């Protein structure tokens, strides 16, 4: 296997790219995908550490994160659809009901 | 039987669960179930009364672990003594009456209303029986929420303003209390106290500076709830906007929470500080009495008038409590119950005419005696009870308060406060005259119906209590007497200590807790007048060196 650090660096890169995506994109679905990317980056860290420490807890966590991600996907996409039904758009710039 | 206290407290919650399964639209069923629950609670609470032994100990104590979070250990520690006993009974007594009064007054969201009422009951009972400070705080906050909704949803025109004002006023105080509570806990930890139990805090010996700050925080929270001048302005608004049952409970029980807080927590926990502040609080109480009476006199809205009269009455309670003698505190406790009954009754009375006429302006009435003789009679009895006519309950409490305060160092305050007796007659009789006497000239009033059977049934228990407590208050006083004596002893020792701190500090080498070297102070000596009391804070090490356990604290 490779050095722990290389995995962590890859994970950091992926996470940062995901962050940038969340912050810059307007399409709600893309933002959503970027969040998945960030989650996966964290998953990678978990697995890498788990392997390094010889402890399976991290992998169990990944398992749970996946569950959460799945649930999130279901609800999040449902929200996007509901929003689209309402506004004919999934641009987050059109969502500003929380304004003031 | 040993769990009767918990049973009483949480029966209303069971009632709430029951109500959840009843459909929204069957209003009659909802009302009857709520009534049944409160009546059962009252009956169960009578078991407490019959099982109560007349002594100074806490009884029906239940003490089980509850939350242990790191250094914070909260226990479910409840129990009652003579001081809380009657307030518990008062609460369970008032609740069926309050529920019954809503039968025609509330037509919307009946289910939610009843749930609020029952939750409120649990909150109030819980606060009265808590012996764990943290538990008390939780119940204290629990009370707030249903009341907030009751004012905010079922209130009058200006309900949102009143509800928010009520909530924020109380919240400000209780947050301060929370801070003080946590601080007190850490102080206790240093002295080896492991939990939030009130009884262990009683044994805690604090230096005067700490006491003063903690007392101020507690006193502020309770002063808002009482409410004392000048923190009273939420009360008229809350009372005016609240629905009848809300006003009744607010006046009868919720306000007692403040005065009870002083008697149960602020004074015995920080007795020396309490002595320091007695003149200040007595001054505020006396100002409250006169001020509220004068303001009540010129009110145009009957309900607001009654609300201001509450402020005046509770000023009397505070005066009695801060007399620090048995007569004064007994009077204060009695007055709490009396106020619950007679002001509760007054709010019910205002509710009756409001339901009929949908106005509370005094000028809209006049001459109602002719049309509503039963109502007039009841109103009059309650009016005189509120005025404190001998033979009714109001007198006994007021008299003992004034007597006790006169005996203590608050003599001059008492003389001024006594003139409140005149003013109370002025404003109550004036409103009675304007509402009930005179020509029945408003055509809308000429078709008013007299009280119906339900309304009379609501009032009868209150009237019975008015006379019973006025003519034979002995059982009430006897049950609370030992607990009050204990409290007075606790406070008196502290007052001697408070005045003796500088010499005590000088005699640090003396065997600790040597009461023999302290000359017996005359009981009626002004606590705040001694200039020597303040430097105590600089001599802080002295009390610290003393053992944590106060040898005088009666156990």
């Amino acid at each position: 296997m490779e050095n722990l650090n290389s995995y962590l660096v890859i994970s950091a890169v992926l996470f940062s790219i995901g962050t940038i995506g969340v912050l810059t994109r307007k399409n709600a679905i893309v933002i959503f995908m970027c969040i998945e990317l960030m989650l996966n980056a964290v998953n990678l860290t978990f697995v890498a550490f788990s392997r390094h420490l010889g402890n399976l807890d991290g992998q169990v966590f990944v398992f749970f994160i996946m569950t959460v991600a799945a649930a999130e996907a279901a609800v999040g996409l449902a929200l996007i659809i509901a929003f689209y039904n309402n506004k004919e758009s999934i641009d987050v710039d059109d969502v500003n009901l929380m304004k003031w | 039987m040993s769990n009767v206290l918990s049973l009483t407290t949480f029966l209303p919650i069971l009632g709430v669960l029951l109500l959840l399964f009843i459909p929204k639209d069957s209003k009659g069923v909802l009302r009857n179930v709520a009534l049944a629950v409160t009546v059962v609670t009252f009956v169960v609470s009578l078991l407490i009364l019959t099982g109560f032994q007349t002594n100074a100990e806490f009884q029906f104590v239940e003490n089980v672990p509850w939350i242990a979070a790191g250094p914070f250990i909260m226990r479910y520690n409840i129990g009652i003594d003579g001081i809380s006993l009657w307030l518990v009974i008062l609460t369970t007594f008032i609740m069926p009456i309050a529920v019954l009064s809503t039968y025609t007054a509330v037509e919307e969201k009946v289910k939610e209303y009843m749930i609020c009422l029952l939750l409120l009951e649990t909150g109030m009972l819980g606060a009265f029986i808590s012996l764990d400070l943290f538990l008390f705080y939780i119940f204290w906050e629990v009370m707030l929420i249903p009341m907030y909704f009751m004012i905010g949803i079922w209130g009058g025109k200006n309900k949102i303003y009143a509800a928010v004002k009520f909530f924020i006023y109380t919240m400000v105080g209780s947050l301060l209390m929370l801070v003080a509570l946590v601080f007190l806990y850490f102080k206790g930890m240093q002295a080896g106290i492991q939990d939030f139990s009130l009884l262990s805090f009683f044994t805690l010996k604090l230096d005067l500076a700490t006491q003063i700050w903690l007392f101020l925080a507690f006193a502020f929270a309770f002063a808002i709830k009482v409410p004392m001048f000048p923190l009273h302005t939420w009360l008229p608004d809350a009372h005016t906007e609240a629905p009848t049952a809300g006003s009744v409970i607010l006046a009868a029980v919720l306000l007692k929470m403040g005065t009870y807080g002083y008697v149960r927590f602020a004074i015995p926990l920080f007795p020396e500080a309490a002595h320091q502040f007695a003149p200040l609080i007595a001054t505020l109480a006396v100002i409250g009495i006169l001020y509220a009476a004068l303001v009540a006199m010129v009110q145009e809205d009957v309900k607001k008038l009654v609300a201001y009269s509450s402020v005046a009455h509770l000023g009397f309670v505070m005066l009695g409590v801060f007399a620090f003698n048995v007569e004064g505190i007994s009077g204060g406790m009695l007055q709490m119950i009396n106020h619950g009954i007679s002001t509760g009754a007054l709010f019910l009375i205002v509710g009756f005419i409001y339901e009929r006429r949908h106005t509370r302006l005094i000028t809209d009435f006049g001459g109602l005696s002719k049309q509503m003789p039963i109502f007039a009679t009841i109103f009059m009895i309650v009016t005189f009870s509120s005025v404190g006519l001998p033979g009714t309950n109001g007198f006994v409490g007021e008299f003992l308060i004034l007597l006790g305060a006169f005996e203590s160092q608050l003599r001059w305050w008492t003389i001024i406060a006594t003139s409140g007796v005149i003013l109370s007659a002025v404003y109550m009789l004036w409103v009675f005259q304007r509402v009930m006497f005179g020509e029945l000239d408003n055509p809308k009033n000429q078709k008013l119906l007299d009280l119906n059977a339900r309304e009379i049934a609501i009032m009868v228990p209150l009237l019975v209590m008015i006379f019973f407590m006025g003519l034979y208050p002995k059982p009430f006083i006897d049950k609370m007497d030992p607990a009050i004596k204990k409290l007075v002893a606790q406070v008196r020792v502290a007052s001697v200590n408070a005045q003796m701190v500088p010499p005590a500090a000088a005699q640090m080498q003396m065997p600790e807790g040597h009461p023999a070297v302290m000359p017996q102070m005359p009981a009626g000596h002004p606590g705040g007048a001694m200039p020597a009391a303040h430097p105590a804070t600089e001599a802080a090490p002295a009390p610290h060196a003393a053992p944590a356990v106060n040898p005088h604290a009666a156990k």
Partner: protein
Amino acid sequence: MFDNVWLIPLFPLIGFLINGLFGKKIKNEAVIGGIGTLMIFLSFLVSCGILMQMIGLPPEQRVFEKVVFPWIHSGHFKADMAFLIDPLSCIMIMVVTGVGTLIHLYSIGYMHGEEGFYRFFAYLNLFCMSMLLLVLGSNMLVMFIGWEGVGLCSYLLIGYYFHKKSAGDAAKKAFVMNRVGDFGFLIGLFTLYWWFGSNHNIWTVNFMEIKAASHLLPYGGVVTVATLCFFVGATGKSAQIPLFTWLPDAMEGPTPVSALIHAATMVTAGVYMIARMSFVFVKSPETMMVIAVIGAATAIFAATIGTAQNDIKRVLAYSTVSQLGFMFLAMGVGAFSAGIFHLMTHAFFKACLFLGSGSVIHSMHHALHKIHSHDDAQDMRNMGGLRSAMPITFVTFLVSTIAIAGIPGFSGFFSKDEILWQAFANPYHGDLNIVLWGTGAIAACFTAFYMFRLVFMTFFGESRINPKAKSYLHESPLVITIPLMVLGALAVVGGYIGMPKILGMLPNYFEHWLDPVFALATEYSHKYVSHAAHPSHALEWSLMGLSVVIALVGIGIAFTMYVKNTALPGKFVATFPALHRAVYNKWYVDELYDYLFVNPCKALGQFLWKGFDVVIIDGVVNGVANVVMGFSGIFRYLQSGYLYNYALSMALGVVVMLGYFIFK
């Protein structure tokens, strides 16, 4: 028999409960009135029994205390519901139940057909109960129940015709003024209790215990404070300066009420209270002087007002105030038994006068009602010449008037003369005595004048009533005239039990009877008064003669002005318009009080509410809220509502915090 003393207040209470709760259902006036009267009559019988038994006992054993049930026990404080029987309370219960019975009987006739007949009797019974508690109470607190209870009943009965605004006002005024007095009473009570407790560890409000410990009290000082406070209580209840203005207004109540409450019984409570605590009062020479001066001043002040009133009941009301002044004068000069004696005789003749005036009003009202006239049935200017129409009323009224005017042979003479003599010859006030006596004597002259003015205007001369109504005037029914006759008889003979020693015909039973009660007071007074001057019998005889002359002068003036030369009063008014206006308007005391107390209080209340409560306190509260609102109004612009802004700030926050922990 003594053990049954609790029956005395119990019977009226039962009457009150029956009539109060079921009176509306009973409807039958005879039954309601019968129950009310019977109950008070039963009390009267019990009282008689107690009196008989008491007479049978040697004087020093004539004290008995009966605890009915424990009332308030708290800390040091202990007050039981307990009754005290001694010669003084014996007299009082006899007067209350006796006169009370007669007035109940009278009311059956007088109140016939009134709406709320049952209510009236219920209140009347309640009043009797409270009054009996007041006089029987063995401690200050039971007395205070009665004290306030009679105030309550007075309120209820004055406000009996509640649809009249004036009645409501008068009722409220009476209660509030009484409350001012109660304030004094309470402070007095507290002072005494506190002083005994803190100095001698005697925590008591019981009269007998205080009496036993009264030797500990100092002369003056704290006792002056306490007794002055008690005296304030007495002025409220007994309508003395400065708290007298409620009594004339109280005439808004039905006439039997005026007779029972505002003449015979309740208003004398203050006198009774001072007598009850004579052993405390005499310990303060200052208070005694204040009482004497206030009494004398009230006597003359009210008498002057009485001369100009036209309402028959108002004249009697001022007369009552004036007579009460005499009683206080007696108390102030240490003539306690004389004062109580006057209280009793006054109860007879003043009750008779009020009931007589009630009889007149009843008849007038009836007659005016028949012709649908709206003339005032109580205004003496509408009366005149009633003598022939109402012979019984006239005779009893005249007898009582003679009694009050102080003509020898009638009861009023004995008591009033005794008071005047004591005012002159008492050892307390030194040079002030002559002033007190002089004031009293002039007041007596005024009394004779306005009372005979009343009689002349009402019963003599030509009839001024609407001629159409004249034929409807008739004597009242028996149920009304019997009490009149009984009281009239008492007004004549009642005085003989207390005949002054100097007349020598009968021993002064009354004074002997009360001796054990007031002996201690007399003993205390010896400590500081000089009793060197012992005025001679000759002086007493001559003063007695002088007072008779004074009375006759008063009567003579009245006769001249209102019978012989009826134009004189008009001329007098024309000559001194300002004086007449001032007297007619009661020296503007009401207006003065409005100006000094009532209006400032209202204005202050308005200011505190609208100015302080709403503007300052709520201003601060809402101000805080507004400041918060203002800030949040600015900060809310941070809430753009755009998702990326929130995400950005969150990420930024995470970065900054992480950075802080890394680089710290």
